[in-house]
């Protein structure tokens, strides 16, 4: 391992400077230096998705991402909520009661958020393909897929409501 150096990261809207080996995977900096708990260690090999974070709109495996290579802002599970409200994907997750143990759900939610940002109304096949590298050992896949469809439908309703200048709150 190389010498420690000062690395600056912008995470969930705030800049942090940490003194670590530049090759340190982003995951350990997020968890052990910044105290974040959303991204978690599952495999350390980029195979399962437990450590996923969003960088430049893409779901990135932080366990195989050296922290010194991160140039853009990092959004973690903790950073998805905005203005006092959970992200629509998180709300769909609660409505569908998706988790069992919940340990992989960071990866499921982060990957779903990035998928829906790219494809707002994915087909079943696009959901299966887009989520296929994100594993769950409780096997909550069926409800994960339902929740993604629910979140997509809810976003469609919101944009339809906005286009139609509908007043009031839309669930």
């Amino acid at each position, binding site marked *: *391992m190389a*010498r420690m150096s000062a690395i600056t990261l912008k995470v*969930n*809207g*705030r800049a942090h400077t940490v003194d*670590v*080996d530049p090759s*340190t*995977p982003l995951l*350990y900096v997020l*968890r*052990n230096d910044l*105290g*974040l*708990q959303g991204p*978690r*260690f*599952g*495999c*350390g*090999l980029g*195979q*399962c998705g*437990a450590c996923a974070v969003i960088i430049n709109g893409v779901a990135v495996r932080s366990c195989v991402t050296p922290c010194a290579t991160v140039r853009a802002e990092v959004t*973690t*599970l*903790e950073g*998805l*909520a905005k*203005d*006092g409200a*959970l992200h629509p994907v998180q709300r769909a*997750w*609660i409505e569908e*009661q*998706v*988790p*069992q*143990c*919940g*340990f*992989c*759900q*960071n990866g499921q*939610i982060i990957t779903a958020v990035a998928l829906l940002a790219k494809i707002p109304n994915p087909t*079943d096949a696009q959901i*299966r393909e887009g989520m*296929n590298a*994100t*594993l*769950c*050992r*409780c*096997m*909550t*896949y*069926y*409800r*994960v*897929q339902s929740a993604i469809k629910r979140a997509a439908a809810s976003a469609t309703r919101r944009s339809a409501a906005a286009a139609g200048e509908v007043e009031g709150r839309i669930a």
Partner: protein
Amino acid sequence: MTTFTNVPQHIEDLLEQQTAVSRRAFLKGSGMLVVSLGAGALAGPFAARAEAQGAGPYPDPDFRQLDSWIVVHEDNTATFSVGKTDCGQGTGTAFRQMMADELDIAFDKTVCIMGSTHNTVDQGGSGGSDAIQVDGWPMRRVAAEARRVLLEMAAAHLGVPVDQLDVRDAVISVKADPARRVTYGELIGGKRFNVALTGTNVDATTGVAKVKPVGELRNVGQSPQRYDIPAKVDGSLKWAVDVKLPGMVHARNVKPPAAGARLAGVDESSVRGLPGFVRVVTKGNYVAVICEREEQAIAAAKQLKVTWEKPATLPFPTSDDLFTYMRSAPPTSRQGPTVKGNPDAAFASAAKVVEAQYDMPFQGHTAFSPAHAMADPSNGQMTVYSNDMKSYGMRNGIAQFLDMPRDRVRVVWMEGPQGFGRTAADDAGFEAAYLAKEIGRPVRVQWMRHEETGWDTKGPAFAFTMRGALDAAGNLAALDYDARAADYCHVGYNEADTVLIAQLMGRRRATPAAGSAGTPSEMYEIPNRRTASQVVALPLVWETPLRTGNLRDPNGPQITFASESFIDELAAAAHADPVEFRLRMLTASAADDSGFRRARSIAVVKAAAEAFGWDARPSPRAPARAEILTGRGIAYAFRNQTVVAEVAEVEVNRRTGRVWVKRLVCAHDCGLVINPEALRHTIECAMLHSLSRALHEEVRFDAEKTTGVDWITHPSLRHADTPARIDVVLVNGDPNPRRSDLPPYGAGETACKPMIAAVANAIFDATGVRLRRVPFRDERVRAALSAARV
């Protein structure tokens, strides 16, 4: 802040400090409020009950004291303490529903803390699908007793006899004058009940009060959302992996490169110069590296130069040779044969005899996150922060392992990754405690992926031989069942002489556990039967990555794969519809048990067929030449009094061999249902876990080590495998059952049993090819189809 785990306050504080900087800044910037749980206002009890590491010893909470189970607070809320652990099936929510009903308090005015040895009674943690079935009863009884005591207190307070009082939502009022009222909180908030309970053991714990009839339960049968889910979705839950302590260090293990290898030497100078290096610890064949930072420990464990001597004899055959070995090895133990009727005569006079062998490989627990724990050795005590499903056993085992008094050791249970029984023998907790005691600092241990997949406990491999005799009418006249399980030296529950670190250190019991093989669980009336089972040992008994442990529904999926596949083979040989063939054997007797298991078995088989839209005909269906062949299969099983039938509809790609289970139906009867939606979800996931075992999972090994070490070399079910549709029919799932005597049975594992056979039967229906070796990976299916010229 999450308030439903029972993390000690000093850990809560530390975790809050760690997250406070980024989170507070974020909250200010965005104006976001912390997402609060329904129980968010109930932090009080934790502050009151939590003890810092310095405040030990940690005596066992007394199960014969009401105060050990229930605390009522001044704000008229209640905390329930339950000595079980919730592995994600929602048992904590179910306990709150049952106990809120018995106490007469609103569900959302309660919290449930679970599983920590110092503040919840030892109810064994989780296992055996028994949380609701067994522990539901004492929890209901103690809540009913608390209500009774509160009513007596109210009678004295209001000067009115108990029978003239009403109670609802933790408020007691005078029937004739409802304005005269007093709340539970006003009566006892912040004070102790000081009420003694009775019972010869914890399961028998009871007060004077009786539980309510089922018809009077208001929350039971409803589906309140699981309280643990919001914090798992917003990132605020503190898991066992999240615990950090001042002065803590990180440890990583170095495992033997070959099973049974002996540690010949460690060159500490190979890592001494690394940044953050603290120490190498070795004892026997156990090796760990400790560093200040996590990534440093990972790097040091990779870099440490270790010399190993491979054993003189090979530890096991290769996974390709396993079943040949198992069928020829001398058994270490036998059960049976048990004989009913005269099987030999029935076979001699049979119109048709069917024979088949089935092979089920070792399958791993492969927890989603590797084993982990944090141990704090300060003040001559030992606190272990762990996701161990059997935290109480871990506490006892660690006390014994470290030769410490039990009351100087505690295990704080926190949530963790699904392990399906892996943490019943939780190696990382023992390792963390051992290393912490060695170096006198808090130590966090986490295994790496290759260790967890390669070295976790395994569900035993099985080799089956079955024979069936059909009479001239196509009825099953005799069944001969023989099973061999590679289950010798089955690992126990957190035992100080069977956990892996103990084995590697050479600390072992003289007599290995005998293991078991088991027999089919069905209610078929077959006039002549012979049932036998044997256990066989692999050459290496200790220190092996093929050591066996309880994998979700221990042995059930293996046995049911063979038994329910074979019933299907017999149905095909009799040219009978598989549902009709099963119902014929279920209805051939009227004899039933007190739980009506026969009648309920018939009901679930019928319900599954009806929900699926079963087309009655023999399997296989007429041959087709399309690229995608479709078929359906059924299988049924019970576990204790829970009965289940499952139907799988498959698409088999004739060219690639890929099997996609496009639809699943489960008819399930586990008696009284506490939370129907949480139950449905549990059943869905249990079926998919077994589907993963059917399609993908096998522990592969060469003649010296396991070769599956990650999610590529040891695959698991993925999103693309998910059925397009899953239907769960709760046969006795009436949310408001009229039967006041309907008891709840376990629901965590039964749905795992029939799935593999249901899939195999559906593949046969689609293709006419019988798969008798699990898993049904593409290449195996393709080869079988090709050999059969399908």
